[in-house]
């Protein structure tokens, strides 16, 4: 699998935490890859392990109570077992992070310029003045007006959108090859969410930077993603190119997600379809398929953990974790002519 072709290659990554209530397996045998310059969207409900997975890639979840297995290869370097020194060099330099909430991710008592400059200086051998010039340039580039004076301002003097632009400037500061953006717009006003995301995606395309974008929003996925990874209950349940995922989704959970997207081209129905039930507890997960308890199509075999496998000969990169056979899936996923998850109680297990 690891043939070195991909920029990032995650193979069988498992992350668990020892907690007071028991062992939590937040990421469960996840495998995916990412090519240089690609935009990959990571989709899933809150608590499905998206954030833990993305932070674990660069060792940000390392803690006494955390344990890891599997590998993450970035440009030939294995990151899970890498020493902290190596990770420090890669973090911010080659793999940059854009956090969920820019309000709290900037140090309140340091000037913005200092915070951008310190990252530049951590990775490149430049002086203070030069790092500041670069910071001004970056702030200009992400659309912060009067960058030269604003660079001396503090976080609380910026609006939410501006703060996230600062985070983007920071992420771009050392010309990374990969940016990991963890729901970068959830904390922002709805009115500028799309704008910021497009700016981010455009900057990535311009610079040839790969992007892992964690999001809830299928509209965003459809517009920006090259490929999509869907997570549920700590597991990757489906991954495909964006076209394959929208045209030929294989996992019932993906059907449910696609079916619950509001459509402006259809008359508004009384209520948006939802997926009945709640996400599984990761302390005591269901045996077998994690989605089975909420799945109307489950059957006997679902008590076994489905493997993340390519099941479609013509779509080799399209992998999913569902035991149903392909023809049955293509029949079951149609609800009133549209892709969706049939409502009603799950069929009882035999």
């Amino acid at each position, binding site marked *: 699998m690891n043939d070195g072709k991909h920029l990032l290659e995650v193979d069988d990554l498992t992350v668990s935490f020892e907690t007071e209530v028991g062992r939590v397996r937040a990421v469960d045998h996840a495998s995916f890859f990412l090519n240089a310059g690609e935009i990959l969207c990571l989709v899933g409900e809150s608590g499905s392990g998206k954030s833990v997975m993305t932070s674990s890639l660069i060792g940000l979840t390392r803690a006494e109570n955390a344990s890891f297995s599997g590998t993450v290869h970035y440009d030939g370097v294995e990151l899970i077992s890498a020493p902290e020194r190596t990770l420090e060099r890669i973090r911010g330099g080659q793999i940059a992070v854009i956090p969920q909430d820019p309000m709290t991710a900037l140090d309140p008592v340091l000037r913005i310029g200092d915070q951008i400059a310190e990252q530049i200086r*951590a990775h490149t051998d430049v002086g203070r003045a030069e790092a500041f010039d670069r910071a001004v340039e970056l702030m200009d580039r992400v659309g912060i007006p009067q960058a030269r004076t604003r660079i001396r301002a503090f976080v*609380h003097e910026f609006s939410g959108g501006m703060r996230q632009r600062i985070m983007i400037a920071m992420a771009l500061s050392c010309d990374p090859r990969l940016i990991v953006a963890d729901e970068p717009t959830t904390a922002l006003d709805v009115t500028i969410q799309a704008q910021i995301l497009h700016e981010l995606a455009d900057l990535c395309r311009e610079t040839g930077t790969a992007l892992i974008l964690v999001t809830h929003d299928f509209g965003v996925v459809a517009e920006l993603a090259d490929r999509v990874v869907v997570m549920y209950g700590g597991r990757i349940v489906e991954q495909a190119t964006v076209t394959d995922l929208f045209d030929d989704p294989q996992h019932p959970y993906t059907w449910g997600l696609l079916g619950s997207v509001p459509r402006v081209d259809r008359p508004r129905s009384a209520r948006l379809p939802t997926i009945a039930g709640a996400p599984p507890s990761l302390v005591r997960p269901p045996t077998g398929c994690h989605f089975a308890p909420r799945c109307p199509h489950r059957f006997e075999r679902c008590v076994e953990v489905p493997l993340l496998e390519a099941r479609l000969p013509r779509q080799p990169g399209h992998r999913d974790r569902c035991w149903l056979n392909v023809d049955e899936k293509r029949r079951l996923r149609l609800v009133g002519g549209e892709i969706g998850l049939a409502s009603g109680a799950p069929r009882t297990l035999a």
Partner: protein
Amino acid sequence: MNRFIVRRAFQAAIVLGLVSIFTFLIFQVIPNGDPAARLAGRTATPEQIAAIARSWGFDRPIYIQYLHTMGKIFTGSVISYTQQINVVDQIRRGLPATISLAIGAGFIWLVFGILVGLLSSLRPGRLLDRTLGFLALTSISSPVFVIGSVALYFFAYRTSILPSGGYVPLTDNPLHWVEHLLLPWISLSLPFIGFYSRVLRGNVLDAKHEDYVRMARAKGLSSRRVLVRHVLRNSLIPIMALWGLDFAGVIGGGAILIESIFDLRGVGQYAAESIQVLDVPPIMVIVMYTAVLVVIMAAIIDVLYAYLDPRISLNA
């Protein structure tokens, strides 16, 4: 800034007024508080007491007495009842010892408070943290007169490594100055070190979970840089505020017990002696002097705070 200074000066005046009135009134209501009776001695006749009261003005209404005393305090001519010497001169004489005590101890408890707190926060819940936490609680709950007496017993009485008390001015002999102050410094510092280390430990552990610290790591900064520049920088701001007030308290003569145990003859010891004989003028002056120092220090802290934490505005 000007508005800030004016407002603070106004507040200081109010604080001084209230503090002086309360202090003055306390001595009117406590038993044996009548200064005329005390000045006249044990065997005095009522006539003698009345004569003393008349000549000192104790027979006049309380508010007149208060204004009279305050007037003398502000002209610097206030005289103590018992020794009948100028109180301001007396305080001035005690200042070098008190300032020496405060600066040395303040330095020690700040540095060690931060060091111990940092050490505890490195691996919370582990043996080192628990041991330091236990020691901190022990020192916080030990009265300084116990710490001071134990220190004296071991270092001055049993081994005579250090002198048992007294104060030698820095200008006379720097070495003796340090020798005489070492035990007072340490005894005074121990409870503060315990307290500061616990506060800092908590601040550091809180700061470590802040998003901006996580982000600093995500930026690829070394863990030492993250600790110093982001964690410590934010954790030390409240410590600085604490230190300013505690330091002002000691310089203001608040280390009454330590000064008395080690016979430093500073402002605090003068306060202690005056209280024992219910000598109102020195007590009034010392209390007001302390209040002024605390108010000034609080203003300095606010300015520093606004400088260190840009979210805070002086004019809020």
